[in-house]
C-alpha cells in the first residue's frame, strides 16, 4: 500500500464517479449533480458554479481516497472488495447525512427543512437519500460510489 496509490486511485475513481453520475443524469435517472451542488456554494452563475464544482469534487475525491488509505493502513488490509465496501458506506453516509443534512445547512443557496418565508434559498434540498432528485438517485449514488471505492481500494492494493 502506498499513498501514491490513493492519489491515483482517487483521481481515477472520481473521474469514473463523475462520469457515472453525469450518465445517470443524461439517461433521466437522477437530477443529482454533485459538482453543481458544490459549486453553487461559491457562485450564483450556473456555468461558473459547475467549473468550480468539478474542481471541488476532484479535491473531495482525493480527500476521501486519503481517508480510505488511512483506514487501510490501520487495519493492515486493502483491495478492491474492501474498497467497494467502503464505497457503499460512503454512499450511505452521503445519502443520509453528508449531502442530505450537512450540505443544506452550510450551503448558502440551498434550502433546508428549516428554510421559512423569511429565507431566500435558490436550490431545492436533496431530501433523504437525495430522493428529491429522482427516485433512482439512491441506486445511482450507491453504484457509482461502490465503483469509486473499488477503484481506490484496487489502486492502493496494487501500489505495493
Amino acid at each position, binding site marked *: 500500500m502506498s499513498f501514491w496509490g490513493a492519489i491515483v486511485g482517487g483521481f481515477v475513481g472520481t473521474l469514473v464517479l463523475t462520469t457515472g453520475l453525469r450518465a445517470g443524469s443524461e439517461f433521466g435517472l437522477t437530477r443529482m449533480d454533485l459538482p453543481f451542488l458544490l459549486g453553487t456554494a461559491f457562485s450564483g452563475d450556473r456555468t461558473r458554479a459547475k467549473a468550480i464544482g468539478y474542481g471541488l469534487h476532484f479535491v473531495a475525491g482525493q480527500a476521501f481516497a486519503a481517508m480510505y488509505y488511512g483506514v487501510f493502513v490501520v487495519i493492515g488490509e486493502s483491495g478492491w472488495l474492501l474498497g467497494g465496501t467502503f464505497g457503499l458506506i460512503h454512499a450511505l453516509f452521503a445519502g443520509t447525512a453528508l449531502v442530505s443534512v450537512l450540505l443544506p445547512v452550510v450551503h448558502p443557496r440551498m434550502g433546508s*427543512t428549516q428554510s421559512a418565508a423569511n429565507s431566500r434559498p435558490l436550490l431545492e434540498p436533496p431530501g433523504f437519500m437525495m430522493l428529491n432528485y429522482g427516485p433512482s438517485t439512491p441506486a445511482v449514488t450507491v453504484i457509482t460510489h461502490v465503483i469509486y471505492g473499488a477503484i481506490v481500494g484496487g489502486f492502493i492494493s496494487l501500489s505495493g
Partner: protein
Amino acid sequence: MSAATTSAATDPFSGTGREYQPLRSYAAIGDGRTVALVARDGSIDWLCIPDLDSPSLFGAILDSTQGGRFELCPEIPFTVERRYLPDTNVLETTFVTDRGSVRVTDAMTLPAGLAPGRELVRVIEGLSGLVPLRWSVEPRFAYGFSPGRLETRLGFLVALAGSDAVAVCSWSAGEPTCNRGRVNARIEAAEGTRAQIALSISHQEPLVFPARHEVDQRLENTIAYWKGWASSRTYDGPWREAVIRSALGLKLLVFAPSGAIAAAATTSLPEQLGGERNWDYRYSWVRDSAFTLDAFLRLGCPYEAEAFFWWLMQASQLKHPRLQVLYRLGGGSSAPERILDLDGYRGSKPVRVGNAAAGQSQLDVYGDLFQTAWLFASARNGLDQDIARRLAEIADFICTIWREQDSGIWEVRSEPVHFIHSKMMCWVALDRAAKLARAGLVPDRHRKLWEREAKAVQTYVEANGWSEAKQSYVRSAGSRELDASLLMAVLLGYDDRGGHRLRATVRAIRKELGKGPLLYRYTGEDGLSGGEGFFLTCSFWLVDALARLGQLDEAAETMDTLVALANDVGLYAEEVEPETGEFLGNFPQGLVHLALINAAASFSEQQRQ
C-alpha cells in the same frame, strides 16, 4: 374588518357532531413551509406537518369526526370580527359576547434562534369584561389515521406519533388536562389579561420547548417580517389592497425550502358538494408558472422569481425534454394518487392524496414554460448556458409532438383530443423560442425550424379551431364547444392574423360560459360525473383580456365585482357555487390570486397607456 353573528359551536369537548364550516369562513396562516386554516369560530381545521404536502395533523375540514382540530372560542354566544393585521399573514379574531370581548391573534411564527421546527401561536387578550373561553387541541396525525399518544414532558403535554411530536405549551391559559386524546382547558379572559398557547412541532428531531418571552418575540418578528415584505412590493395601481393581500396569500403558498409554489394549501375540497371532483392541489403546476413569474416580477419580487425559475428548471430536468404537468414541492416527479377513507368535506368523497394528472400529457405546459423563460430572460437580460441549451432541446421536442392529442389544461379524465388551447400554447412556445434565439439568449441553430413549425401550428388552429357558427375559437378541433382557457390566447399574445377572432372569442365566451362577471370553464365531456361552480381564475383572465383589448370600462366593472367576491379576509377558493355564492374547491387557490394580480397589473398598464 367584518362581523357576523355566530353561535357557540356545539360542545367542542364532545368530539362529535360538529358541523363543517363554510369554506368562505377560513383564513390562512403559514410560515413558508406549511399552512393552517382558521375558521371564523376560531377552530384550526387544517394543518399538515412538517410541510404543506405532508399528512395532516388537523384535518377536520375533511372529516369533522376523525380529522382533528384546535378549537378556541367563547363558551357563550358570540359574534366575530376578523382581519389580518395590516400587511401581514397574522390573523386577528375578535370575539364579542354579552359579557365582554376578547381578541385572539393567530400566527405560524418564522424561525429565529433555537426555535421549534414549526410553531403555531395563539395569543388571547381580554379587551373588556370577563369572557369564558375554552380551548381544545385534538391532534390526529397522518390524516387522522394515527391518533398518537399523549404524555407529559418537562411539564408540557406532548402528543407523539412515529417521528412526529407536538408539545402543547400554554401560559395563563388555564390548566390543560387530557381527555380521550385531547388537551382541554378553560380560561376566563379578563380585560387587560394576556395568555399564550404555542404548539411546538417537531419532525425527526427533538422537541424544542419555547419560553414564553421567546414566543412573544418570534410573533413580533413574524409581524415585522410580513410588514416589511408587503411594503417592499412595488405595485401602486388600482385595487392595491386586493393585490397585496393576494401577494401575501401567494407567499404562503411558496414552499421556501425549494422556491416552488403550491397550487393551493389543501386537498379534496370539492368542486361540487357531494361530488367526486376532489383533487390534491399541494403540488406545483407548470401551468401556473408563467402567471407566477409574471406576478412576481410585476410585484417586485425578484428573489421569489429567481428561486421559482431555478426550481422549475431543476424539477423538469429528470424527464427532459418532456415536461410533467406537475411536480412535488421538493422537486420530485412522482405523485401517486390514492384515496383516504375519510368522510370528505360535507360528505364529498373521495378524499384523494396524490394527483394522477402528473402522468397526463398536456401540451399547453410547453407554452407556459417558454413564456416563463421569456419573462425571466427579459427581466434578467440573460439565461444561463445550460438552461438555454435545454430550452433549445425542448423547442426541438415540441416540433415533434404538437400534432399529438392531449388532456388539455383542465386535465380532463376523458380520452385525449386535439385541444385548441393546447395548440395555441405550442405556438406560444415556439414563438418565444424563436424570439429568445433572435435575442441571442438560446442557441439559434434550429430557429428557422421553430418559426416554420409555429406557422404550421397557427395554420392548424385557424383551420380546425375556429367556428363560423359560434364566431369563436372552440374547445377542441372540429367541436362547437367553448372553453374559457382560450382567453389565455389574448393574455399571451397569440397571433390570430388580424385580431378580430380573439375579440370575437372573448365575446362568445362571455355570452355562452358567463353569468355576469363569472364564467364556467367549459361545456362538454370531461370524463367525470356531476358539474362544478364558476371558475374564478377564468373571470380574472376575462378582466385581463378585456383590459388588453382596450375595453377598460368593462374590465373595471368586472374587476370590482370579482374583488367583492373575496371572503372577509380577502382570500379566494377555486370556484364559486352558482346559486349560493359559497366557495368551492381547494383553498386558498394560488391561480386565482395570480390571475387577480396580473389582471390588476394589466389594467393599470393599459390605463397608463
